[in-house]
């Protein structure tokens, strides 16, 4: 986007936010039209459920409506909404696991996962081309969050780490494990990271802190 386009987009965002603040429903509908697709898509993949993603979308826009006064125009409206949506998804994943002791609790749930059984492992078969989406929904929540934010949504590890409230090395470790688990799902075989220490897979230390190359 060129500088003048950015300026124009910023002005449009601020205008739209101002109209929303004045309670113009048409403006709010415009906000929804512009951003609901992206927010729904990320929510659908993070929660693995269309119904949950719809609930999430509804919550996010109602929340945005209540909090529009706090939007000052520093970031794009879309970015502001996106962060609301990702946070809502993470809250959902955490509460889904029934743990609320601290923000990153759900990250810890990856330890001790049962390895995937190996009755149908077919090394010569091509990856199942059809069902990546359904395989993603089968990932443990923390793997899914890291995978969706990095590989699907295209964020860098430092951004993923920031959103999840974890170290950058942990983000890498979760992503690598997620990819191996997906490979196992798509091949109908074993998870080749199972049983291997996380450090060996990612090079991350016990505290998960390893700088990106």
């Amino acid at each position, binding site marked *: 986007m060129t500088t003048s386009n950015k300026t124009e987009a910023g002005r449009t965002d601020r205008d739209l936010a101002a109209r929303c603040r004045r309670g113009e429903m*048409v403006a709010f509908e415009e906000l929804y039209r512009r951003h609901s697709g992206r927010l729904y898509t990320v929510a659908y993949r993070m929660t693995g459920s269309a119904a949950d993603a719809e609930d999430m979308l509804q919550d996010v826009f109602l929340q945005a409506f209540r909090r529009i006064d706090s939007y000052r125009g520093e970031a794009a409206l879309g970015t502001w909404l996106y962060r609301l949506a990702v946070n809502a998804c993470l809250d959902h994943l955490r509460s889904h696991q029934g743990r609320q002791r601290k923000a990153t609790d759900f990250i810890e749930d990856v330890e001790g996962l049962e390895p995937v059984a190996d009755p149908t492992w077919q090394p010569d078969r091509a990856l199942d081309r059809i069902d990546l989406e359904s395989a993603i929904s089968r990932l443990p929540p923390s793997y899914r969050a890291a*995978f969706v934010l990095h590989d*699907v949504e295209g964020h860098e590890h430092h951004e993923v780490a920031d959103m999840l409230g974890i170290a950058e090395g942990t983000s890498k470790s979760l*992503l690598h494990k997620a990819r191996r688990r997906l490979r196992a799902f798509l091949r109908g075989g074993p998870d080749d990271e199972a049983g*291997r220490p996380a450090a060996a897979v*990612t090079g991350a230390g016990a505290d998960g802190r390893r700088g990106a190359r």
Partner: protein
Amino acid sequence: MDTTRPTPLACERMASLVDDSVDDRLDQATRTQLEAHLAGCESCRRRADDLGEIRRRAGALAPRVPRPEVWARIAQQLAAQAPARPRTFWTGARVALAMAAVLVLSVVSSVIVLRDPRPSPPRTPPAQTSATAVHLSASDTVKDVDEHLRIADANYQQAITGLEKIVATEQTALDPAVAATLQRNLGIIDQAIRESRAAITSQPTSQIAQTSLFDALRQKVALLEDTVALINVMRRGDQAGAAKLIGSLSKS
């Protein structure tokens, strides 16, 4: 190329490099080292290929679209919190009206097909009256947008009532499981219709709420039409045609 068989330890060491390679984060020297290993190790090469493929496909997943009902629900809740505003022109009214006209014709043809097994002289289709009403409205006899909306809605309702009558009298031809699926899906659509109407009541200018209502109405007509078609093919004993239609009924 190293022709000796790679050791498990070497593979273990390369595993972390594979992901960095997939993410294009390796310097040239490390990349060369990894490539040399992959050239001699089929297992690691397969893993690298698979992980690269997963990464590519993840980045190319198609966007998803929320159902129109979601905005209808949001609009309803927002309206409850916001002060009333004057209504503005509803640009979707004419579109809905045009669709209603097409719909009426399609309902007419459904009825005729259903009656086909027992040939009778050509007769005026029962829905002809509403088709005429739509035509008159569309030719600007009715200027008011609300009136367009009302007529379009009324036409859908008339079509739905006609189809429901057919389905009610003929549905003994349906398998009980299919009939149950039909009722369940009709229930879901009816809920969407109710929510959309509520959203329009509280948010008369919302195009999404209006689109949502007419989407739901169209869905209901399509489902009922499929049901009528299914009754027809079952009467003819066309099992393959019936299976195909049952599939589409289940997906409605």
